């Protein structure tokens, strides 16, 4: 995956978490996701289309997701709270939206967020591109941001194509 699509996510994660969650964040070295690596308990997923195709997944252990969602919403949230998935989805939305502005000439659109909750689930990227994992560490605990983005061969302005994201 081209670094020009990864660096914007690193900047976006820092910006979103510092501004909206009021959390200091330490970002580790991105690494390729092994296909058998199981995701965490809570995943916020956004698809990207337009001049690029791919998706971004914010993947949290349950307790970390609850603490981060609570800090973001300004109120105590558990995984059973009605607003829990809304908060996780909105964080994913902000990270994707904030990152795509730095894709250079590639104008991207983002999907509405999806949130998967449950232990042992795995989010599979398109076969076109593997996920790169960006490890993140905060005072609330660690989580991963998984990114799979490649340029679309279609010229700018043509019809957008979404990449299927499957929760297994």
């Amino acid at each position, binding site marked *: 995956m081209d670094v020009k699509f990864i660096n914007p996510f690193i900047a976006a994660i820092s*910006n*979103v978490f510092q*501004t*909206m969650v009021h959390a200091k964040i330490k970002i580790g070295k991105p690494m390729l996701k092994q296909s058998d690596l199981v995701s965490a308990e809570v995943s916020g997923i956004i698809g990207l289309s337009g001049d690029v195709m791919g998706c971004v997944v914010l993947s949290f252990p349950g307790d970390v997701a609850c603490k981060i969602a609570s800090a*973001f*919403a*300004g*109120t105590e949230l558990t995984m059973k709270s009605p*607003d829990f998935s*809304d*908060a996780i*989805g*909105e964080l994913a*939305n*902000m990270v*994707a*939206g*904030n990152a*795509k*502005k730095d894709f250079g000439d590639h*104008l991207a659109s*983002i999907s*509405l967020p999806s949130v998967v909750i449950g232990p042992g689930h795995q989010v599979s990227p398109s076969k076109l591109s593997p996920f790169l994992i960006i490890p993140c560490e905060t005072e609330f605990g660690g989580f991963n941001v998984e990114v799979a983005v490649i340029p679309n061969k279609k010229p700018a302005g043509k019809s957008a194509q979404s990449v299927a994201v499957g929760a297994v």
Partner: protein
Amino acid sequence: MKILLVDDSRTIRNIQKNTLKTLGHEDVIEAADGFEALACIAKDRPELMLVDWNMPNMDGITLIRKVRETDKALPIIMVTTEAEKSRVLEAVKAGVNNYVVKPFTADTLAEKINQTMAKVKATAGTPA
């Protein structure tokens, strides 16, 4: 001042409501998409509207175009993750008065609201 918040995320609407409360605005109504917003406006026109871009059913840019067909005066601030210059220009062309990019601080949102309302007030006071 009645303010309409249009965002599909209740979390964001709550954050916005808290910011508005600190500014002394407690008369707030909410909508989760463009259709709900149009219904709110038809029932009781607000004096300011904050609108997200990406929403289900009817997105924010479509909502703004529809509102501007009949109401050129309603102050509208777009609050969105869409930060590319082309998107901002599209929103300005559609008729927004101001633009806030998510993530935002409470101070930024407050500043843009005050800026927008001051401009609207100044324009209203200008002789034709």
